[in-house]
C-alpha cells in the first residue's frame, strides 16, 4: 500500500487541481450567460479561419514585432512543453519514469527542444519583466494598471520563471542520476540546456540527487496545477479564452455597427400609414426592451466573453486617439471595468442564489460618461486588439442607453440631433437649400 502512496497523492492533487479549475470555469460560463443571447452564428468557415490565423497563428501579435515575437516564444513554449506535462501526468499516476522514453531518438529530440524552449521562455519572461518594471513602457503605466493589475502581471512572470527553473532542475538532476547509473534512471533524453547546470549537482550523492529530482518534479507539476487555478483570478485567462473569443469576434466591416432590432420594429410602425397609433399592444407582447446598456446584463455574451478574455496588454489604449491626447477614455479600462462589474455581479449571485439589487451598475459606478463621450468611434482599439476584442461596441451600447433611455447627450449633440430631425442635416440649414451649391460660384 505504502508503495502506491505517491501515486495516490498525485491522483488526489490532480483531481483537486482540475476540480477547482472546472468549478471556476463554470462560474465564468455562467457569468457570460448573464449577457444577452447572440443570434445564430454564421460564417463558421471564416470564423475558424480567424481562429487559425489570429489566435493559433498570432498574426496580430507581430504588428508590434518585439513584444510579438517574444510572445510567440512564450506561447509556443507553453504549448509544446505541455507535451512533457502529459508524460508527467502518466508517470505520476502509474509510477513510471519517463514513460515516453521508448521513443528513443525522437524522445531525445523532444526533451532537447523542450529545454531550448524553456531557456527561450526564461529570456522572454525576463525581457517582459524589464519592459514592465524597468523600462516602464507607457501602456503598462496607465492609471487603470495600478495595484492588482500590475502585481498580477508580475506574478504571472514569476510563476513562469519558477516553473521553467523547476523543469530544468528536474532534468539536470535526472541527467546526473543517469550518468551515475542510478536505479530507475535509465538513459533517456538530451539535455542541451540543463547540461550547464550539472556542475551544481556533481558533488551530490545519489540519495540527495533523487530527493532534489523528486522535489523539482513534484513542485513543477503542483506549480502547474496552482497556475491553472490562478487563471480565473487573473488576466491570464486569455490563454484559454482567446480562442473562442476570436471565433466569436466581429467579422463584418469594422464600420458596420449593428442596428437595434427593437428600434427597427418601432420605426417601421411609426412609418406605416396603416398603423393604428392608439392600438393596445397585442396580448402577450413582451415589454419593450431597454435601449442600450447601463449594466453588464444589458451587454451581449460576446461582449462579456471579450471582458474575460482581455489580458490588459493595452495595445488598444495606446492606439486610442482620445487616450493619446490625455482624455479619460481608455478602451482597456472599458474591458477591465466590464469584467470587474461582471465578477461583482457573479459574487452577488454566489452569495444570494440570484442577483440581488446592489445599487450599483456599470455606468457611473465603473465607466464614467466623460469616458464614453470621448470616443471618436475610429476603431483603432478594435484594430489593435490581438484577440479580436471590441471595446467600441460597449461604448456604443452605453451611449445608446444615455441618449435613448436618459436623454443625457451633451447639449451640443442634442442641438445637432434636433437639426437632423428637423432639417435633415446636423446644422441649422433648410433641407430645401441642399442643392444651392450648384449655383454658387
Amino acid at each position: 500500500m505504502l508503495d502506491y502512496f505517491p501515486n495516490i497523492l498525485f491522483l488526489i492533487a490532480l483531481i483537486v487541481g482540475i476540480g477547482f479549475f472546472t468549478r471556476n470555469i463554470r462560474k465564468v460560463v455562467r457569468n457570460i450567460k448573464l449577457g444577452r443571447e447572440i443570434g445564430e452564428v454564421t460564417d463558421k468557415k471564416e470564423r475558424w479561419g480567424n481562429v487559425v490565423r489570429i489566435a493559433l497563428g498570432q498574426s496580430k501579435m507581430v504588428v508590434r514585432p518585439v513584444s510579438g515575437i517574444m510572445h510567440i516564444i512564450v506561447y509556443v513554449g507553453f504549448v509544446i512543453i505541455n507535451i512533457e506535462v502529459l508524460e508527467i501526468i502518466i508517470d505520476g499516476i502509474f509510477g513510471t519514469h519517463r514513460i515516453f522514453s521508448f521513443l528513443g531518438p525522437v524522445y531525445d529530440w523532444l526533451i532537447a527542444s523542450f529545454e531550448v524552449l524553456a531557456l527561450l521562455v526564461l529570456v522572454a519572461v525576463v525581457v517582459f519583466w524589464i519592459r514592465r518594471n524597468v523600462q516602464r513602457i507607457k501602456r503598462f503605466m496607465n492609471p487603470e494598471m495600478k495595484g492588482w493589475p500590475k502585481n498580477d502581471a508580475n506574478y504571472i512572470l514569476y510563476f513562469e520563471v519558477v516553473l521553467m527553473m523547476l523543469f530544468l532542475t528536474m532534468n539536470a538532476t535526472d541527467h546526473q542520476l543517469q550518468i551515475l547509473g542510478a536505479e530507475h534512471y535509465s538513459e533517456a533524453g538530451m539535455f542541451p540546456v540543463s547540461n550547464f547546470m550539472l556542475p551544481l549537482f556533481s558533488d551530490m550523492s545519489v540519495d540527495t540527487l533523487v530527493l532534489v529530482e523528486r522535489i523539482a518534479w513534484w513542485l513543477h507539476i503542483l506549480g502547474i496545477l496552482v497556475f491553472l487555478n490562478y487563471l480565473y483570478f487573473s488576466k491570464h485567462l486569455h490563454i484559454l479564452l482567446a480562442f473562442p473569443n476570436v471565433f466569436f469576434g466581429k467579422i463584418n466591416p469594422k464600420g458596420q455597427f449593428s442596428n437595434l432590432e427593437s428600434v427597427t420594429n418601432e420605426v417601421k410602425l411609426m412609418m406605416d400609414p396603416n398603423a393604428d397609433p392608439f392600438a393596445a399592444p397585442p396580448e402577450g407582447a413582451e415589454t419593450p426592451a431597454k435601449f442600450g446598456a447601463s449594466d453588464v446584463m444589458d451587454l451581449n455574451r460576446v461582449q462579456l466573453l471579450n471582458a474575460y478574455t482581455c489580458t490588459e496588454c493595452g495595445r488598444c489604449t495606446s492606439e486610442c486617439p482620445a487616450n493619446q491626447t490625455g482624455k479619460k477614455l481608455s478602451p482597456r479600462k472599458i474591458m477591465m471595468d466590464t469584467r470587474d462589474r461582471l465578477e461583482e455581479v457573479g459574487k452577488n449571485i454566489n452569495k444570494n442564489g440570484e442577483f440581488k439589487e446592489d445599487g450599483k451598475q456599470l455606468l457611473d459606478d465603473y465607466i464614467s460618461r466623460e469616458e464614453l463621450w470621448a470616443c471618436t468611434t475610429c476603431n483603432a482599439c478594435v484594430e489593435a486588439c490581438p484577440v479580436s476584442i471590441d471595446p467600441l461596441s460597449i461604448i456604443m451600447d452605453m451611449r445608446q442607453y444615455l441618449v435613448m433611455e436618459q436623454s443625457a447627450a451633451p447639449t451640443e449633440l442634442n442641438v445637432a440631433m434636433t437639426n437632423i430631425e428637423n432639417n435633415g442635416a446636423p446644422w441649422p440649414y433648410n433641407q430645401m437649400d441642399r442643392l444651392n451649391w450648384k449655383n454658387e460660384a
Partner: protein
Amino acid sequence: MSESIQVPTMAEYMAQGKQPEVLFWVGCAGSFDDRAKKITKAFVKLLHNAGVDFAVLGTEESCSGDPAKRAGNEFLFQMQAMMNIQVLNGYEIKKIVTACPHCFNTLKNEYPELGGNYDVVHHTQFLRDLLNEGRLKVEGGKFKGKRITFHDPCYLGRANNEYEAPRELLRKLEVELVEMKRCKSRGLCCGAGGAQMFKEPEKGDKDVNIERTEEALETKPDMIAAGCPFCNTMMTDGIKAKEKEEEISVMDVAEMIANAEDL
C-alpha cells in the same frame, strides 16, 4: 468657373424616364459646409469630364444618420435611414458614389439590413475605376513632384479596408507620397468621428486634430491630402493653429485631380 454647373436631379431624370449610371450622394457637409462644397464641385467637374451620367437627390436627400447613430440615437438614425431608403428605392437606385466616408460607410454597411441594398463606393474608388477604364485622365500637372502625405479617413480605411484607392490616384498625380508614422490600418483619427464633429472635445491635454496635424507636419509636406470633408476641416483647423496655412494646404484627392488639369 461658370456661375452654374449642370447637376441633374433624380426627379428630373425620372420625369424624362431615364436612369443615371450612378447617384452622387452629396451628404450634409458636401451640401452646406463652405469648404466641403468645393470638394463637391470639384468632383462634379470630374464626373462631367469623364462623361459620367450622374444625378443627385437634391432637396430629397437627407442626413444619412451617421452622426445620430454614433452619438447613440438609434431611433433618429433608423428614421433617417428608412426615409432615405424610401426615396432611394423609389428611384430604383443601384449604384451610389459619395465623397463622404461616413455616408459611404452607413449607406454601404448599415442600410442593407433596413432594406436599402445598393452598390456604394467612395469617390476615390469611383475615380480610380474611371481611371482604370480610361474614362478619366489623371496626370501630374501642377502637383508633379510635390511632397504630399495622405491622411486616412477612419471610415474609409479601418472601417472598410480601403487604403489603396486614394493612394493610387495620388501616385497618378506623380506626387512624392510620404507616409505619416501612423498610417493605413494604424492611422490616427482626425478627431471628428463618432459625432465629435458636433461637440466640444472632452477634457484632455491636446485636441486630436492638433496631434494629427503635428504628425503630418513631421513629414515636411507641401500639402496634406484628405478624403473626407470632416478630416479636411479638422486638418485645416490644425494647420491654422500651427500657423502654417500660408505654406501648407489641405486638399481632397478629388480637388487635386480637378485642379491638376485646371478643369
